[in-house]
C-alpha cells in the first residue's frame, strides 16, 4: 500500500494517472525505489493530499525542464549513493551532459533540447540492457531522431534532419537490425550519449578507427592523410559518407565522375589510373573466388565432398579482405602481393571443383554399368528360378 500510487491511480486527469500505469516497467521500482525517493513527500499519508505533498516532508513535485538534469543527478551523480546499486556505474553523466550541445543550450534557456527523460523516458525507465529500453542499441536511433528527424521541430537549429533516413541505408544499420549485432555503430557510437556532440572534421577518423583500427592505421600512413588535412576534408567521411555509410564496393575505385576519387583527381589522371589498376586486381580475385564457390556448390549439391577445397579457398577470401583494406594505403605493389597468390589459390580451387564434377560423371557412368551388370544377373537368376521350378522343385 502506497499513498502516492493509491491516489494517483484513481485520478481522472490522464497526465496524473499515467505515471502509475508506467511504473510497472520502471527499473527504479525493481531496485526498490518508490515515488518519494525522487519526488519526496509523505507516502504514508493516505487520502491526504496536503500531507502527502508537504514541502516540510521534502515534496519536490514535478521538476521544471531545466532542472531535470540536477533532479536525476541528485542520485546519479552521487558515487556514494550509486555504488550501493552498482559499484561500477558511472556518475559523471550530468557533468558530461553540460559539455554537450543539448546541455549548453539548456543552460542558455532553450527548453526544446533533450534532457534526461527525452532519451530515457520517465516513470518507465528501463535498464540499458533491456531490449525495450529507449537507449537499447537497436532502438536508440529512433530515440534521437524523435527530435532530429522532425524538420518542424529542428527548424530553428538549421541542421539537417535526414540522418535517420540516411542511416537506414547504411551497412551499420543493416548489421545492427538484420544481423542483431549490437556492437554495430549507431548514434551514440560516433556522437557520444550524454556529451553528444558531432565529431569535428579533424577528429572523425578517430571515431571510425575505434572499430576500423587496421584501415585507419593504413590511411594514416597514406598520402591522403596529409592531403585531406590540408584541404580540410574529413578522413573516412569524404569517401564513405557519415550516416549513409554503404557497404564499400570495388566500384568506388572505378574512377568515374560519380566516384569519391573524382572529387579531387582529374579524370584520366595517373592517380585514377592507379585506382583502376587496384580495382582490376581486386575484381579479378573476387571473380576467381566466385567461380570457385559456384563450382564447389554445384559439386556439393551433387553429393561430392568439398570440405578440403572449401577450406583452402578461405585463404583466398582472407587475402581479398586484406587487399581491400590495403586500398587505404593506395600502394599497387602491396595489393598485388596479396591478390596474386590468392588468384592462384582460387584457380586451383576451380580446377579441384572441375575434377570433382569429372569424378561425379565417372561415378554415374560406373553406377550405370554396375546396374546393367546387376540387371543381367537378375535376368539370369529369373530364368534359373523358372528352370528349377519347372524341374518340379516347387511341390
Amino acid at each position: 500500500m502506497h499513498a502516492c500510487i493509491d491516489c494517483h491511480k484513481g485520478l481522472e486527469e490522464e497526465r496524473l494517472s499515467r505515471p502509475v500505469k508506467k511504473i510497472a516497467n520502471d527499473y527504479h521500482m525493481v531496485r526498490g525505489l518508490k515515488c518519494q525517493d525522487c519526488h519526496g513527500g509523505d507516502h504514508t499519508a493516505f487520502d491526504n493530499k496536503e500531507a502527502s505533498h508537504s514541502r516540510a516532508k521534502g515534496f519536490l513535485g514535478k521538476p521544471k525542464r531545466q532542472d531535470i538534469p540536477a533532479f536525476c543527478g541528485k542520485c546519479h551523480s552521487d558515487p556514494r549513493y550509486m555504488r550501493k546499486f552498482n559499484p561500477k556505474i558511472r556518475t559523471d553523466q550530468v557533468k558530461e551532459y553540460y559539455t554537450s550541445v543539448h546541455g549548453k543550450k539548456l543552460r542558455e534557456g532553450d527548453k526544446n533540447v533533450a534532457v534526461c527523460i527525452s532519451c530515457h523516458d520517465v516513470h518507465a525507465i528501463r535498464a540499458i540492457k533491456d531490449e525495450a529500453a529507449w537507449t537499447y542499441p537497436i532502438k536508440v536511433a529512433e530515440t534521437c531522431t524523435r527530435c532530429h528527424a522532425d524538420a518542424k521541430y529542428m527548424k530553428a537549429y538549421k541542421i539537417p534532419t535526414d540522418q535517420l533516413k540516411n542511416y537506414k541505408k547504411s551497412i551499420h544499420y543493416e548489421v545492427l537490425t538484420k544481423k542483431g549485432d549490437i556492437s554495430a555503430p549507431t548514434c551514440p557510437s560516433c556522437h557520444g550519449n550524454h556529451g553528444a556532440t558531432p565529431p569535428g572534421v579533424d577528429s572523425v577518423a578517430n571515431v571510425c578507427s575505434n572499430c576500423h583500427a587496421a584501415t585507419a592505421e593504413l590511411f594514416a600512413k597514406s598520402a591522403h592523410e596529409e592531403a585531406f588535412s590540408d584541404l580540410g576534408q574529413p578522413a573516412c567521411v569524404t569517401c564513405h559518407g557519415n550516416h549513409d555509410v554503404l557497404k564499400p564496393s570495388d566500384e568506388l575505385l572505378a574512377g568515374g565522375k560519380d566516384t569519391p576519387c573524382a572529387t579531387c583527381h582529374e579524370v584520366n589522371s595517373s592517380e585514377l589510373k592507379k585506382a583502376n589498376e587496384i580495382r582490376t586486381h581486386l575484381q579479378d580475385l573476387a571473380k576467381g573466388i566466385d567461380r570457385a564457390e559456384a563450382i564447389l556448390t554445384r559439386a556439393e549439391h551433387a553429393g561430392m565432398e568439398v570440405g578440403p577445397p572449401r577450406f583452402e579457398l578461405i585463404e583466398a577470401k582472407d587475402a581479398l579482405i586484406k587487399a581491400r583494406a590495403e586500398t587505404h594505403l593506395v600502394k599497387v605493389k602491396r595489393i598485388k602481393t596479396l591478390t596474386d597468390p590468392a588468384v592462384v589459390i582460387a584457380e586451383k580451387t576451380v580446377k579441384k571443383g572441375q575434377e570433382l564434377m569429372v569424378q561425379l560423371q565417372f561415378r554415374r557412368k560406373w553406377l550405370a554399368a554396375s546396374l546393367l551388370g546387376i540387371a543381367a544377373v537378375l535376368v539370369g537368376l529369373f530364368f534359373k528360378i523358372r528352370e528349377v521350378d519347372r524341374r518340379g522343385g516347387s511341390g
Partner: protein
Amino acid sequence: MRVNRIIGWIEERIDLSGVKHLLQEKVVPVHHHTIWYYFGGMTLFLFVIQVVTGILLTFYYRPSAEEAYESVQFLMTDVQFGWLVRSIHSWSANLMVATMMIHLFSVYLTQAYRKPRELTWVTGMLLFGIVLTFGFSGYLLPWNVLAYFATKVGTNVAGVVPIVGRALLRFLRGGDDVTGATLSRFYGLHIAILPLLTTLILGLHLFLVQQQGMSVPPDVERASAQQPIRTMPFAPNFLLRDLFGWFVALGVLAALAAIYPWELGQKADPFASAPAGIRPEWYFVFMFQTLKYIPARVGPFDGEVLGVMGFGIGGLFLLLVPFLDKRAARGEPSPLFRWIGIGIILYIAVFTALGYLAPGGK
C-alpha cells in the same frame, strides 16, 4: 567332377550330414505369406555388407575427437572408392534397420513366435536391440555436428531412467559430457562388443531357424487340414529367390550411394548451440516425437521419465509376447495380440511422420 572330389575329401574328415540335409531335404512352405520369409535373409545379407564395409573403413578411420572427422573426410576425398564404401555402409545400416523392422512385424503378425519358436523370437528381439545400438553408436563416429548433438540428446534420455539413469549416462558417455571419451567407447562398442554379441546370438538364432524350419501362419495351418501345404526346396529354389532379392538390394544400395552419397556435414563443435530442428535417425524419431508431446509433468511424475518407462514396457512386452499370448501357444486365433501389433505399427508410422512433418520438426 572336381567339386565332388573336394566334397569327398572334406567328408572323410568332417561330418557334413547336417549341411547335406539342409541342402537336399529342407523345404520351405509356399503360401500367400511366403514373401515375408525373405526379409530375415535380406537383413542378414545387409548385415554382411555392414561387416565387410565396416572392416574396410577401419583401415582409415581414427577414433579420436581430434582425428575422427578428418579421417572420414580423407576417406571420402582421397581414398580410392572410400566415398563408395562409406556411403554403402551408411545406407546399408538404414536399409538393414528397415528390413529388420519388416521382418520383426511380419513374424509378429504371422504369430511365428508361438510354441516351439519362443527362443527364436527372444533371440530375434535381442538382435533388434543390438542393431539399434549399432545404429546409435555408429552414428557418432564421424564426429560431425548432427552426430554430436544427436548423441547428447540420446544419452540425456538414458539419464532419465529412474535409479540407474545417472550412472547409465556417465557409463555411456565416459563422463558427464559427450567428449572424445564417448567416441572411444562407442567405437569399441561398435566394432568389438556388439559384433561379438551379434555373432553369438545370430548364430543361435540361425541354428534355431534351421532346426525348427519355417513357421506356417495359423490360418494356413488350419487350412492345411483340408489340403496339404505346398513346399519348395530350400536349395536351390528358395536360395535362388533370396539371391535375387539380395542383388536387387545391392543395386538399390549402389544407386543410393552414387546418387545420394552420405553427407559428412560440419565438424562437431561442443561449444556451439544445437542446430535448430535436431532429431535422431529415423528409426528413433517416433520415440523422440513422443517425448516432445508428453507434458513436463504428468501428475506427480516427470513426463520424460514416464515416456522412457513406457518405451521400456513396450520393449518388454514385445520380448515376452510368446509367453503372454496363450491363445497362439494353443494354436488358436489371437485377435487381441494381432490388433496390438497393428496398433504398434501405426503408432511408429504416424509418430515418425509427425517427427518430419509437424511444425518445428523440419
